[in-house]
């Protein structure tokens, strides 16, 4: 690792140590919500749910499972 890489790792680790678990969890959920807002349509919408459900039902998750 270069000195800059090491600094990035140590700075990130220091910041993480300074965050309470509760603050970190709240920031993670806020980041998820922010990322979701950048999508063309939100994940918590009928359209996204239908697409997600169709993708999962078509995937190898379910190819060995039948009702």
């Amino acid at each position, binding site marked *: 690792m270069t000195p800059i890489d090491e600094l990035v790792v140590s700075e990130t680790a220091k910041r993480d140590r300074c965050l309470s678990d*509760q603050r*970190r969890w709240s920031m993670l959920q806020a980041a998820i919500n922010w990322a979701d807002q950048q999508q063309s349509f939100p994940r918590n919408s009928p359209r*996204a749910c239908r697409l997600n459900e169709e993708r999962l*039902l078509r995937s*190898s*998750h*379910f190819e060995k*499972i039948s009702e």
Partner: protein
Amino acid sequence: MLNADHILETLNNCSVDYILIGGMNFLLRHKPVLTFDVDIWIDDTDANRQRCTEALVALEAEWGPSEDTWASVTKLEADWLMRQVLFSLTTSAGPLDVFRRVAGLPSWQECRQRAEICKTAAGTQYCSLSDDDMLACQFALRESDRKLDRIRHLESVQKKS
């Protein structure tokens, strides 16, 4: 907006037998990954499906076989969870996927025995799919569907223990 604590609390309050799986389980137990929904695997019994429906009503969940027929789950027949093996729903606390079956894993009861009861940082209790079962789940998928970063991380955790 996603509020995973509210989803888990509601499932707990309605005594739903569930195991948290997928990206949110990995995020809570290991390290942050970008995941937009909460995935749960429920014990697929009549009584538990009934409790799950009650939780979904409390969460103001909506689902439909198509976008045109999307509506509150209160409008569906009593045993609507029997319709298919998974449901991707909208709720007032964010998107929720309910699985009745999960490929690559033994029975729900066997996985429940290996699962751990954990708490989110906000203090909400949840039942977490074990690391071994998370890995088994990934290996059951086609290679193209696998989450390689999760596999690498879980394998490194296994080696250390």
